[in-house]
């Protein structure tokens, strides 16, 4: 099924449910992810926000027994019908713990482009520089590109992972708690970077840190489990509105720290 392509929706789900075997983890979720905006997913542990995020680039395909109903769309096309390698080129991911490859800084960033067919050394060099600049890491590593990615600090490693993700020119970057393993200074750098990145990319972020959701995101989606422990979308709205006048009392209870 094709959805009508709208100008400002990059990704969306329609009546999307996900089961781990017989257990329903996501219940009938319909949500739009606006293009060139940062959408934050918040909610207590186990509410399905990471599962939903991972559905955007079919990371859950790797888990045995996962069944989905409904659909996830990227630019109006059903992601289930896409070649998964192509899909993950368009929808990149940054994880909670920085996970650079045990390779040089250069090779970490060049890994994706090489995989997708860029072999020319000077083309790769241009791409690596551009990606590291966009990830706000270039100035710190420009003279050390041959050093191991593992030798960087935690915050630098996470920015290296972001550079690696954007080196293949994705449309969407999914971030699953990208700053929860970082100190406050490195966290602020990542947040500043996200603001820069949204000019070129659409960002969806899962975060447990509500102040972070408030600081960085344009839209906030609140998820919660129902009595059967299935994750439901309670509401999504402009972040300013969610943090000042949420329309659902469950959202209010959660963001004001009285629940969860």
């Amino acid at each position, binding site marked *: 099924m094709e959805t009508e392509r709208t100008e400002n929706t990059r990704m969306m789900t329609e009546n999307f449910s996900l089961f781990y075997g017989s257990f329903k983890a996501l219940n009938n979720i319909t949500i739009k992810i606006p293009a060139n905006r940062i959408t934050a997913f918040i909610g207590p542990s186990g509410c399905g926000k990471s599962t939903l995020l991972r559905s955007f680039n079919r990371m859950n395909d790797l888990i045995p027994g996962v069944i989905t109903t409904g659909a996830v769309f990227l630019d109006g096309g059903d992601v289930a019908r896409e070649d998964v390698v192509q899909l993950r080129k368009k929808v990149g991911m940054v994880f909670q713990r920085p996970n650079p490859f045990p390779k040089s800084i250069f090779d970490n960033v060049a890994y994706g482009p090489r995989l997708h067919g860029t072999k020319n050394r000077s083309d790769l060099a241009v791409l690596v520089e551009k990606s590291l600049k966009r990830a706000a890491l270039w100035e710190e590593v420009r003279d050390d590109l041959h050093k191991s990615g593992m030798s960087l600090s935690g915050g630098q490693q996470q920015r290296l992972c972001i550079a690696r993700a954007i080196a293949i020119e994705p449309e969407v970057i999914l971030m699953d708690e990208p700053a929860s393993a970082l100190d406050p200074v490195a966290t602020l750098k990542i947040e500043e970077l996200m603001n820069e990145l949204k000019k070129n990319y659409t960002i969806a972020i899962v975060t447990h840190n*509500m*102040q972070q959701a*408030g600081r960085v995101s344009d839209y906030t989606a609140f998820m919660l489990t129902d009595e059967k422990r299935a994750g439901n979308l309670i509401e999504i709205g402009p972040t300013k509105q969610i*943090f*000042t*006048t*949420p329309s659902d009392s469950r959202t*209010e209870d959660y*963001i*004001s*720290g*009285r*629940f*969860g």
Partner: protein
Amino acid sequence: MSRESFDRELQELKRSLFQVTSEVRKNLAASVKYLDKRDMQGAAMIIESDEIINLKCLEIEEQCLNIIATQQPVATDLRLLFSVLQISTEIERIGDYAKGIARISQKIGPGKLIKPLTSIPRMQEIAGQMLDDAIRAFTEDDEKAARNIPARDLQIDVLYNQVHRELITFIMEKPSNIEQTMMLDWVAHNIERVGDRVVNICERVIFTVTGIPVDLN
């Protein structure tokens, strides 16, 4: 999960605001009473006590800032704190109006007034009752009450116009009354402003409860 200490801090803040409002309310009533009774000592007491009211309002402001800095309030909590800050400013100004009336009383001096006060005490009663009701609406999150209170401000405005016209006739009858007449007009004006400030408080109550800014003036 509840946030007991945070909720307690918010309750304490509301209580502090309620207390300072009671003191301002007392000063407002007393300022008109002492003016009527030509009580110079009473007027001096009001002026002195206004200093304490100002300090208490500053303390409320500090309490708000501390809570914002340490508890990261959002949604209703944040609106509540924002409203407390604004309402405490309104209360502080109402305190200034009472002090202003006491100052005028001192300026007029201990002699008899050119006329017995009738409408001015009535204005004060209405404004004072409005203030009581508005702060109760705030502490009880009573949006309905907050919407009903501002209508009474019209009665104050009507009385103010009446006082104003009456005082002009006094000037016309006896131009040497002009100084005291103008001072009494200023007293009535101060009370008329109290009504407007109470309407602002009602707007804040509605904002706190609903999140929607309203203009009731």
